[in-house]
């Protein structure tokens, strides 16, 4: 029989999620943003594509995909709505990763598998009022009390908190150990003593709900510590390159959206009886946006490729995230300049890109800390 090469999985995933974004997300993106609520209907629609299961092996209900494919998917989603891409990324990666790696069989059956099917919402709680970039400053304590852990403290800026069914929470078990005393714990929403604040009013990604968590004598079983004692930060470091590369992919998606709008408007809008795209200063903006997006693309997918080959990619992922998120911010800024006063109107999407891009500067490490890390990786510190 004649053999014909098949398309690659990456091509198929890009095409599928590009169509999903064009047909399902973009027509609803403004409505979701204006509603400012977690769009559970969209969460469920995405679940039907098997997206949340992408990174996990077949044996636990996953699809067996890799980091490159995951990044392609979230990039396409982010082109339509950063909010949708953000809660998808949370469900696929941070919210479920530690449960998969270190959860018990019971955790997998009751929580992980339903989460991969989109029947439960996952969340990840790292940040505290005084512990963000400086994780060692975490004050939320987990104290062993017989055959339970007793959790007290609070977390802030927790994506999906108002709607999540379970949380992976970073807690300190031994203050004297600093970073080595940090561990991850699984806390289910219905656990007595867990309180979720009202959602934050925020500038962008308005369809992703974010809130604070408070723990007051929250009692959880011993097996809810996810990972070996003292391995919390080490285990986090193991997926940090994936988190940063994924955030870079989100950035490319948003930058592309701003770029496509800018191109279209440059060819439509006339001033002085000419399309504004015929003016060299507009062309310069278009050229710079295109060039930076191309650069961000090469860096991001090179880092993803390294991760898929099992290589250490912390420096490359940090560079990709730093460059891509700054690219998204510059592209959104330039888009507002090309649109002029219309970018100031809530009727045009560029204002949403301009608000949403700020989200990319914090998640996965600020540009400032990433520059510190890159310099350190280069031996200058």
């Amino acid at each position, binding site marked *: 029989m004649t*053999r014909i090469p*098949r398309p690659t*999985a990456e*091509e*198929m995933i890009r095409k*599928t999620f590009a169509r999903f974004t064009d047909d399902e997300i973009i027509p609803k993106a403004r409505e979701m943003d204006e509603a400012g609520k977690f769009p559970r209907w969209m969460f469920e629609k995405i679940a*039907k*594509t098997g*997206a949340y299961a992408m990174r996990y092996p077949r044996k636990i209900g996953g699809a067996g995909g890799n980091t490159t494919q995951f990044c392609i998917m979230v990039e396409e989603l982010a082109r339509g709505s950063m909010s949708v891409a953000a809660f998808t990324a949370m469900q696929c990666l941070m919210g479920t990763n530690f449960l998969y790696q270190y959860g018990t069989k019971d955790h997998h059956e009751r929580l992980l598998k339903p989460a991969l099917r989109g029947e439960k919402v996952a969340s990840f709680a790292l940040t505290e009022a005084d512990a963000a970039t400086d994780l060692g400053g975490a004050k939320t304590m987990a104290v062993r009390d017989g055959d339970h852990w007793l959790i007290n403290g609070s977390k802030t800026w927790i994506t999906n908190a108002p709607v999540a069914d379970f949380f992976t929470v970073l807690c300190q078990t031994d203050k004297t150990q600093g970073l080595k005393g940090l561990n991850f714990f699984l806390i289910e929403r219905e656990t007595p003593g867990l309180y979720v604040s009202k959602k934050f009013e925020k500038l962008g990604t308005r369809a992703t709900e974010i809130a604070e968590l408070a723990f007051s004598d929250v009692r959880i079983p011993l097996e809810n510590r996810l990972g070996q004692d003292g391995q919390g930060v080490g285990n986090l470091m193991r997926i940090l390159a994936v988190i940063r590369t994924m955030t870079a992919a989100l950035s490319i998606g948003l930058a592309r959206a701003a770029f496509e709008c800018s191109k279209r408007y440059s060819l439509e809008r006339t001033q002085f009886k000419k399309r504004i795209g015929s003016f060299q200063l507009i062309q310069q903006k278009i050229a710079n946006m295109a060039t930076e997006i191309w650069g961000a693309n090469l860096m991001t997918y090179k880092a993803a490729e390294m991760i898929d080959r099992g290589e250490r990619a912390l420096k490359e992922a940090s560079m990709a995230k730093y460059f891509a998120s700054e690219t998204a911010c510059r592209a959104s800024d330039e888009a507002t300049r090309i649109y002029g006063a219309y970018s100031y109107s809530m009727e045009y999407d560029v204002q949403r890109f301009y608000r949403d891009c700020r989200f990319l500067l914090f998640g996965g490490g600020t540009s400032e800390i990433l520059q510190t890390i890159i310099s350190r990786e280069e031996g200058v510190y």
Partner: protein
Amino acid sequence: MKLVVLIKQIPNTSNVRIDPKTGNLVREGVTSIMNPEDRHALEAALSIKDHFNAVVDVISMGPPQAIEVICEGLAMGADKGILLTDRAFAGADTWATSTALGNAIRKNGPFDLILAGRQAIDGDTAQIGPQIAEFLGIPQITCVSALELSDGKVVANRIIENGCERIETPLPALVTCLASLNEPRYPTVGRILDSVLESTPIEIWNAADIGVKAQEVGLAGSLTQVLKTFTPKGGRETQYLEGTPSDIASGIVQFFVDRQVRLGE
């Protein structure tokens, strides 16, 4: 139960451009997609599979790259794909295409129902489904907006110009589907990853494999020959008629008379 779905890869014609010199579609930079109504036909078959013990085969005729839509069909949930590809199939009109597809369906073995989109958005002929039904000597229901299977028969709502017909016919039969029939599912990530593996069954057949001679298919087997394709010259002219209503009415009638437009008996 065996279901066969006909799918076609077409250029995404939402932003179509025609080369003014050659009259051909400019394919550069144009992505290929599965014909939209074929996606609804496949969804109908997969819905039947969800409820009955059915096997769904997707068949397409096209150049080698049409394997993409076969993979997409598998990623949506089909069990097997068949791609008819051969230089001998090139340039086929609907007659030659139906001949090739009809022979392929015969070779693939017994079936209960064939589903196809009403028409492909590149050619817009709506002839392939009906011609295949005639070729195979089975009943057909075209332009279907609702579909039920029971006791060896299919009952369908068929949309016509001024309403809807409800038609019942015994299986095996062929139906052509409208977009209003259902909302197609998206391929799932897991099935996408499977569809590109060599272990997922896709059969590649040429003219010899389906037992047809080169002169029966493709351009040689076509009953119609395209002499020329061209883009009609654009530019509309607006003529304003002024005066009394009577003057304007007379002007309109004269306009038709001058252009020898018959106004009815």
